[in-house]
């Protein structure tokens, strides 16, 4: 790890270097005034004072629709009906000003997408390896952020190649990987005063994360104790099973696989899917193991806060607060998790 310094007026030089090797994306202000991920054309478009994007950047590694393979849809052709793998990413990509929580989310999902030799998702890994993560530390967390409760934080470093700390006219550039170090190699070392300023900002930002939730009782409780708790009868009621929480969430990673054909062209694609959907678990026989809204609501929270920690030792949430912000019936993730963690579960 090294701390370097970069004047904001010199960001162009860094971008030029990036652009020669990478397709660069960043959170940019769109015509409606909201900040969302888009391709970066000019450094003057960069936004330094946003809270976070409405939709997470997971699509750069896990696109909403992704072609996995193609086939010639003709059974009379000797080459027909045989799947051919789709090529990987042609050019490397850089995610500039990614929030630490969003980078951590991708890192957490590696434990599922690359669990072992037989469960090694080549599409995921290809993009993970060809992506550079240049983070931007958070200055003013939103009221819905609770990253510090879920082993994350506004200056969290795991999953990043570089962490930028906005010091006003200058940026502190903290290199966190070899790739990151190489990119920052011609910058000068940060003076102590800048390092101190960054450290102070970290403390202030962490203190500014007001929303908190405990997980210790969830951890010590058995799976069935949590699963059978009466709270689910109350908590699920207002849920519409619309699934928006799972689409905006940086750690929701479920997908469906479908074949598409048009004449002699065929492809097999995967699409984002959601455990909120009835079809997600429906058997052709008519049986549905998660047939009720309550079953599906409970799955989402149990998966993130009990099953993933139990199985992979990672929390399936980075505390970004997007699900709370986008929920049409105001379900607050910290409230539900708070109930799961109550000393007397009921």
């Amino acid at each position, binding site marked *: 790890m090294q701390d370097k310094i970069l004047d904001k007026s010199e960001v162009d030089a860094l971008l030029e270097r990036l652009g020669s090797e990478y397709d660069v994306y960043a959170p940019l202000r769109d015509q409606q005034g909201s900040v969302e991920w888009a391709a970066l054309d000019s450094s003057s478009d960069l936004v330094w004072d946003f809270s976070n994007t409405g939709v997470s950047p997971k699509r750069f590694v896990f696109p909403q629709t992704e072609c996995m393979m193609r086939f010639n849809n003709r059974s009379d052709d000797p080459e027909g009906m*045989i799947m051919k793998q789709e090529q990987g990413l042609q050019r490397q990509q850089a995610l500039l000003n990614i929030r630490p929580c969003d980078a951590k989310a991708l890192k957490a999902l590696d434990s*599922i997408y690359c669990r072992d030799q037989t*469960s090694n998702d*080549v*599409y995921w890994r290809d993009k993970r390896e060809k992506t550079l993560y240049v983070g931007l530390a958070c200055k003013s967390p939103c009221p819905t952020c609770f990253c510090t409760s879920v082993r994350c934080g506004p200056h969290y470093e795991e999953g990043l190649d570089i962490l930028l700390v906005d010091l006003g006219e200058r940026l502190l550039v903290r290199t966190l990987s070899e790739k990151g170090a190489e990119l920052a190699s011609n910058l000068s070392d940060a003076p102590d005063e800048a390092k101190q300023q960054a450290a102070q900002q970290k403390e202030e930002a962490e203190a500014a994360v007001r929303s908190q939730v405990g997980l210790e009782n969830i951890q010590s409780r058995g799976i069935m104790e949590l*699963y059978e708790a009466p709270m689910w009868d109350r908590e699920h009621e207002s849920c519409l099973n619309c699934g928006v929480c799972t689409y905006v969430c940086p750690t929701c990673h479920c997908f469906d696989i479908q074949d598409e*054909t048009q004449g002699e062209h065929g492809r097999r694609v995967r699409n984002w899917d959601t455990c909120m959907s009835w079809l997600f678990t429906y058997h052709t026989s008519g049986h549905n193991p998660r047939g009720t809204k309550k079953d599906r609501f409970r799955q989402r929270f149990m998966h993130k806060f009990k099953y993933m920690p139990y199985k992979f030792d990672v929390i399936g949430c980075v505390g970004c607060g997007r699900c709370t912000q986008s929920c049409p019936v105001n379900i607050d993730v910290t409230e539900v998790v708070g109930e799961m963690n109550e000393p007397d579960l009921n």
Partner: protein
Amino acid sequence: MRNNNPYLPYPVRIKRVEIATEDRSLRTFELEFLHQEDADAFRYLPGQFAELSVPGYGEAPIGIASSPTEGDTLLFTVSKAGLLTSHLHSMSEGDVMGVRGPLGKSYPLQEMEGKNVLILAGGYAVTTLRSTMVWLLHPDNRPKYGDITFVYGARTPGMILYKELLEEWETNSDANIHLTIDNEAPGWDKHVGFVPQIAEKIEPSPQNAMALVCGPPVMIKFTQPVLDKQGWQSDQIIMSLENRMKCGIGICGRCNVGPHYVCKDGPVFSKAELDELPKEY
């Protein structure tokens, strides 16, 4: 690239199709690999399954009915259920499709060594138990196991799968074979009644034994009290689950029962394991 992309099916050709039951709802497919190196790479054990890939229709997880002791071709018995399986029923010998796998865990064949084996099968869930029986009865494996008792129930005589093989076991093997149908039928001189009733009648001893139980939910439901009464413990009972699947490798997220993925951590679980988990199957 194929070997390291777990989503890419091996191309196979339908070598043989057989209408397996009188109501024509089940067909058995024998598939041969287009490339020998793929056949070599596909190393499986009884209890595992594969995704059958039919380009244009998608994939369906199906238990492997053949045993690796039978050679390089694979057997699957498929019920006509929805889109893909209906299309599969219309396909013919010579057609090219794909197979992806082997997937999931096998039956605990090692743990079963030195023990008596009880197999209770109902309906077409018998597929992976066919595989298991062929494997157990193979001369290389037979000496490692004690008594083998195989109970298999179907609605009618015409719904019994793998008839020739069953006859072969009845006459030429030392396994105790009990076949049963739901109601009396002309010419039928074997058991009549449901699998749990037969299990009650033959009173299999739980002493140094393991039971593999596979069948429709009602069979499981009524078999359990019988086994309980006979003193079987939950860690002696092995079951195989069937949840909706897509990826088959523990990534797409839909087949979970609690923290475990049926496709990767199962489909084979002991009853003791399932007792600790939500009944989401």
